[in-house]
């Protein structure tokens, strides 16, 4: 079963446990409870102290377009590996945040890991896309005769 359960905090934000590794070797890395930010188009964002603990080596910079349309100050990036905890690692670009204290995953993480996100009344489920595609599809409802 490839479904992973997450939680929704008091503010309605969804979280899932992820593992991040510098080299992607089996059993390596650190686990974090990450906020799933569907407005973030990147892979993973880590606070600088977590990136240092993982010994990530930043070698690249980029800027983000913020919600107000402005560009942020340059952000350091490192290539690394991440996954929903329990799955196999996938390569991606990790942003190293000098300002944020939490770990974020964006839509690039969901896409790279082949995951779908379901919001439920009791929490969230992060589901492998192959499972979603295997679900029987309901036929479309017939048009109303009224």
């Amino acid at each position, binding site marked *: 079963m490839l479904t992973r359960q997450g939680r929704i905090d008091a503010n309605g934000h969804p979280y899932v446990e992820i593992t991040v590794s510098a080299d992607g070797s089996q059993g390596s890395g650190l686990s974090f409870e990450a906020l799933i*930010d569907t407005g*973030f188009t990147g*892979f993973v964002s880590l606070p600088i102290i977590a990136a240092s603990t993982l010994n990530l080596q930043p*070698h*690249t*910079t980029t800027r983000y377009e*913020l919600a107000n349309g402005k560009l942020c100050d340059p952000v350091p990036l490192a290539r690394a590996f991440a996954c929903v905890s329990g799955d196999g690692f996938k390569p991606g*670009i990790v942003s190293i945040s000098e300002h944020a204290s939490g770990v*974020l995953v964006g839509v690039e993480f969901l896409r790279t890991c082949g995951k779908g996100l379901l919001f439920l009344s009791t929490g969230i489920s992060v589901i492998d896309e192959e499972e979603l595609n295997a679900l029987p599809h309901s036929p479309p409802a017939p048009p109303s005769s009224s």
Partner: protein
Amino acid sequence: MADEQKSALTSTREIAERGEAIYKEKWEEKLSKESPGKFVVINISNGDAAIGDTSEEALRLAQEKDPKGYFHLMRVGHPSAFKAGWYMSHAH
């Protein structure tokens, strides 16, 4: 000033500004026509560009050419490589 004496923030800003200048001077016109929407990684040492459908692909190609290089990531035709969500926007 030796590299190790520079603050991380200063180095990050210098790399980004150099990469943006190289992109504007050397690549923007050409890539805007040929590769709209692609991710582009600029090597700030030699001005080379690596292009990919994903940011990870572009950066992997750039690092294969120059494993010790420093790079700046952009997206052709977009103001930035990525959009920040509400949470990240309020941390910056």
